[in-house]
């Protein structure tokens, strides 16, 4: 376990370009021990490049990376023993069983829990003798997590751990990650799901175009955009005077999107009745009305004008 006060991961002015794209463009990060840190951003924001540089799998063009107080250039052997890594869409050997796969990965590490213990942790007890090729997507992802845990890592890197999973499988995986977190270990994960980041992460860095555009606890980030709620409504095809809506008390901003209107508001209890009154005055029929508390998604939209997931 690293000493408290010393960063588990420190990244300074990191840069990495490929032929025609700048994947990481001057990135700074600091992750404290026992923290779950999330890199949140849309596809192509540079999350995977960043995490793979931290994992020692990709060399940066420039910048400094310090993992658990060690550096890849001088302490790679030592570091590998201390890290648990899950890559984005790795396919494990299909013909091996769950147990055989974990025995293989366990054999690479000096120390760590027994394979049975890890299998139990990721709830694959009943599948221990099953071939990897016969597992469901969620089970494969749990096995990949198990492979990252067999070395008893101080720091766990997870790259898009729940992408492509159904909601139930995602929740199962979240429970397991939370267990690991509860044991006082450090986690760095990437995701483009804002709900995942909000639920799992103590701190989040929002990334876009290879840069961190905002960093803090999920609460801080949401508070930083100065709105607490989002109201979304549709008024059919009727012409609507948006300026009047914009002038209502508590309304921060107004945006049209896919035939709906989105309002960012501070005081829901005042904004909603006023909106309904205004629509009544304009004689506009309301076909849909939804409200939700502001999320990290709204933070991203607020800062970039785009959504995390481009649909």
């Amino acid at each position: 376990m690293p000493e408290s006060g010393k960063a588990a991961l420190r990244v300074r002015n990191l840069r990495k370009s490929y032929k025609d794209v700048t994947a990481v463009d001057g990135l700074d990060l600091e992750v404290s021990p026992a923290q779950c840190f999330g890199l949140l951003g849309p596809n192509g924001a540079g999350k995977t490049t960043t995490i793979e540089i931290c994992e020692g799998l990709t060399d940066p063009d420039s910048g400094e990376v310090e993992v658990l107080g060690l550096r890849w250039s001088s302490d790679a052997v030592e570091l590998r023993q201390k890290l648990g890594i899950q890559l984005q869409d790795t396919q494990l050997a299909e013909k091996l069983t769950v147990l055989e796969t974990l025995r293989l990965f366990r054999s690479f590490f000096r120390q760590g829990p027994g394979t049975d213990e890890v299998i139990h942790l990721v709830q694959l007890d009943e599948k221990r003798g099953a071939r990897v090729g016969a597992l469901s997507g969620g089970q494969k992802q749990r096995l990949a997590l198990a492979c990252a845990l067999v070395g008893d890592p101080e720091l766990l890197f997870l790259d898009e751990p729940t992408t492509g999973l159904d909601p139930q499988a995602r929740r199962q995986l979240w429970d397991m990650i939370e267990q690991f977190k509860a044991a006082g270990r450090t986690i760095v994960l990437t995701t483009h799901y804002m709900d995942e980041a909000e639920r799992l992460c103590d701190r989040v860095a929002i990334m876009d175009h290879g840069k961190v555009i905002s960093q803090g606890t999920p609460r801080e980030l949401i508070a930083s955009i100065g709105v607490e709620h989002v109201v979304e409504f549709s008024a059919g095809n009727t012409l609507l005077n948006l300026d009047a809506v914009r002038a209502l008390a508590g309304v921060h901003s107004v945006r049209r999107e896919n035939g709906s209107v989105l309002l960012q508001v501070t005081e829901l209890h005042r904004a909603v009745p006023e909106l309904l009154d205004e629509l009544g005055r304009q004689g506009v029929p309301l076909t849909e009305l939804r409200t939700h508390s502001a999320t990290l998604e709204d933070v991203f939209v607020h800062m970039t004008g785009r959504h995390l997931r481009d649909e």
Partner: protein
Amino acid sequence: MNNHPLLQLTLMRMREFLREPEALFWAMIFPIALAAGLGIAFRNRPPEVLKVAAVTPRLTEALRQEKLLDVTQLPSQLAEQFVRTGKVALVAEPAADGSVIYRYDDTNPEGRQARMLADQAIQKAYGRQDPVAGNDRIMREPGSRYIDFLIPGLIGMGIMGNAVWGLGFAIVDARRKKLLKRIIATPMTKHYYLLSFLLWRIILLVAEVGVPLGFGAMVFGVPLRGSAAALIAISMLGALSFSALGLLVASRVRTIEAVSGLANLIMVPMWILSGVFFSSQRFPDLVQPVIKALPLTAVIDALRANMLQGAGFVQMGPQAGVLAGWLVVCFGLALRLFRWR
């Protein structure tokens, strides 16, 4: 030791192989089926007896002295018809001036052979004396038949194919699935991964060489005249050289299609040039040095020399040298070019 990475990696190789029934078939059963089929098709037949006809009893009697002729006495017209339809290869009939007429098709080898045998038999029967007596000593020994030539060729081909495909496919597949990248994200010592392939190849070699060898020896009586130690040594050296070639083929490629193409590009010319199915001596003298420098030629020549002529370590030296050269060059290049991702 149960948890040594090298053991676990080698077990993975073994499990992936044994759990792929097609691989087992191509590596083990196919060469045997091929050897059996070709061995039967090209087996040495006893000399064939030719059917001929004669018109008179005296000629018939004369021809019957030749054991390789099966003689029928027929009336002249019928005999001629039999020659035309190929029912007999030749008909012998007396001419008015006391000579013998042979009717046969001189474009047909059987006809020409029958002409020779028939004339010999008739001349002898009419009193010709041979100035020198000729005595036959028949040699039908194992070692000079086609199957004896073929088995070492098939063993060599198997060692090459299994090593190049085995390493090529497994590595490219693991790279494609990002399993290579995942594995080097662990503290695993990198050369263990490579070593596990070589170890598994050596284990598999026992079956790769032993099965066709045992089959040839037991079913066809293919001889094993050389030292077993030299045979094992040259097979292992061959397996290592071809593994290095497989590693080189797989060092950068990312798709199964590309590795298949590359492996075929390398192996097909050797199947043809290196004398698997027919002697490489048939190619022009000009290309012989090139053919001799190919690793498959080296393995097959050494195996043939060992099995058929009893060659030991010393006689296989040149071939061993060729293989060692390929091993060093391919392995050196592969280590330089290899990409884990």
